[in-house]
């Protein structure tokens, strides 16, 4: 009797274990993008899938209020808050406005530029329309690729993790195993990762220094060194943190943090955003025999597409180098 009792307890325990296992599998399944366990076969958090940031960091990493457009000019009144959109974005009206944000820079929200670099940042912001590499469809670099308003896909294996970005169809490989250093600097850098518990830590170097952080002119040099940390919050959200170090541009390391969200549509997938063709007029329109111009003709707005390069623009010369 006693033995029977014990064996039936074992049976019930086994049964309930199996049932709870089945239930937990079913919960993961309904919550996920597709049928996908929360962990990989080697016991790591499973980041495979399609992700996207949901914030205003690509406009400006720092806290900022809403603005009438990415390019503005003085309106009727001489106040900063009364600036009106300028020609390139004017036709977009409120659809081209810049949304406000509480910022993603940790701590006091400041970016510790050196004095010289702070001036370049200011100039970048003023000449955004002439300078931002995003406008030109350059590869976005890290960390900007992580919070652009386009999705990216993570494909995770035990020794490599591939991140594929919709914007300009770029990608990077995170090496979890030992690899040779890269032969030269690149837009997307060289990523080496390891696991610290449930956190994927990625060390990124080897940048060519041609990228920006955002549309506010925040920039870095080729001495950029990133330490990224990916920590699961839920099966469908990742906490993404980056420590940014660049002794040529910043006086000390600083940090940004934001959640990344899993795209939950059952058919979520990356589509093509090949933007080279989108920027031909922008980059080479000056070669037209008759350039397109801008003016009001009665109620009709003719939009300018002239792109000015300020004379003696060192940064521009540097880009073209």
């Amino acid at each position: 009797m006693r033995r029977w009792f014990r064996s039936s307890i074992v049976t019930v325990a086994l049964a309930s274990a199996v049932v709870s296992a089945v239930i937990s599998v079913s919960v993961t399944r309904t919550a996920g993008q597709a049928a996908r366990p929360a962990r990989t076969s080697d016991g790591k958090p499973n980041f495979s899938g399609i992700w996207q940031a949901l914030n205003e960091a690509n406009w400006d990493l720092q806290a900022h209020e809403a603005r009438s457009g990415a390019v503005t000019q003085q309106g009727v009144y001489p106040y900063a808050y009364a600036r009106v959109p300028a020609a390139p974005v004017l036709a977009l009206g409120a659809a081209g406005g810049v949304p406000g944000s509480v910022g993603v820079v940790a701590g006091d929200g400041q970016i510790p530029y050196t004095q010289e670099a702070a001036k370049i940042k200011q100039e970048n912001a003023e000449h955004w329309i002439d300078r931002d590499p995003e406008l030109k469809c350059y590869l976005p670099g890290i960390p900007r690729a992580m919070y652009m308003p386009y999705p990216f896909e993570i494909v995770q294996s035990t020794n490599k993790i591939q991140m594929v970005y919709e914007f300009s169809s770029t990608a990077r490989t995170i090496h979890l195993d030992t690899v040779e250093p890269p032969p030269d600097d690149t837009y997307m850098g060289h990523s080496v990762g390891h696991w610290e518990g449930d956190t994927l830590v990625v060390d990124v170097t080897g940048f060519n220094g041609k990228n920006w952080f955002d549309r506010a002119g925040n920039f870095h040099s080729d001495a950029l060194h990133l330490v990224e940390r990916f920590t699961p919050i839920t099966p469908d959200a990742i906490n993404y943190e980056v420590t940014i170090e660049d002794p040529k541009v910043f006086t000390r390391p600083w940090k940004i943090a934001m959640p990344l969200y899993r795209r939950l549509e059952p058919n979520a997938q990356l589509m093509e955003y090949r933007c080279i063709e989108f920027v031909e007029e922008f980059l080479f329109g000056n070669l037209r025999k008759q350039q397109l111009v801008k003016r009001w003709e009665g109620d009709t707005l003719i939009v300018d597409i002239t792109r000015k390069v300020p004379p003696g623009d060192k940064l521009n010369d540097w880009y073209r180098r």
Partner: protein
Amino acid sequence: MRNRLSDSVIAGVAVAALLLAATHIAAQAPAYRAPRAPDGKPNLNGIWQALNTADWDLQGHAAAKGPVASLGAVFAVPPGLSVVEGDEIPYLPAAAAQKKQNQANWTALDPEAKCYLPGVPRATYLPYPFQIVQSPQNVLIAYEYAGAVRTINMGAPTKAPGDSWMGWSNGRWEGETLVVDVTSLMENTWFDRAGNFHSDALHVVERYTPRSADTLTYEATIEDPKVFSRPWKISMPLYRRVEKDARLLEYKCVEFAEELMYGSLRKKSSN
């Protein structure tokens, strides 16, 4: 011995039954039960946002050049999958022609560019967050874009005093789902930047269903006998903004659109 055998057979059958029950639960779709508000209804309070390209075009679309060449890759059209069930919007023939015309002239015609209030359902999937504040009598939705708001009456359905941008919303709970019936919408709003539009006969039935602690499923059935030959449906996930300091900021865009709308009245063009 015999007894033990039959007992373990019974135990085995019980296990199988439990397993069957469990798999049955797993097979039924949204088993999620949301945390409750004090009145026992699912708690939808919080800041939410869509994460898709529906505001560019409800239907599936490839990436394309933007309307302003000098913005290069920044304001180009991002590609997106359809949020329309079956990917077809059943326009009547005249309306289909109107839609094409709208699309060809979208920057000039789109109410979003002019900072008009966005209407329903477009307010839900504009690229700005919105906040749900819930009480037993009313559910308030505040949208960052243009400071738009709507109050959903949860009591006995009431009739609109007149047409408005954001319409007249009567809500009710169906189990886990907040169902909102929206009528009396003005005809001056669009569905997206692709020129999809409606008339003042628009009738929208929205369904907000929690699917996890931080996500909702949003569905809207759209009916407008002046424009469409049959009702059609859109659906998409909505995401809770999980930043610790998430909040709505101001996006008061009337001033942003002044130069566009009235710039031609300047004494001398400033551009």
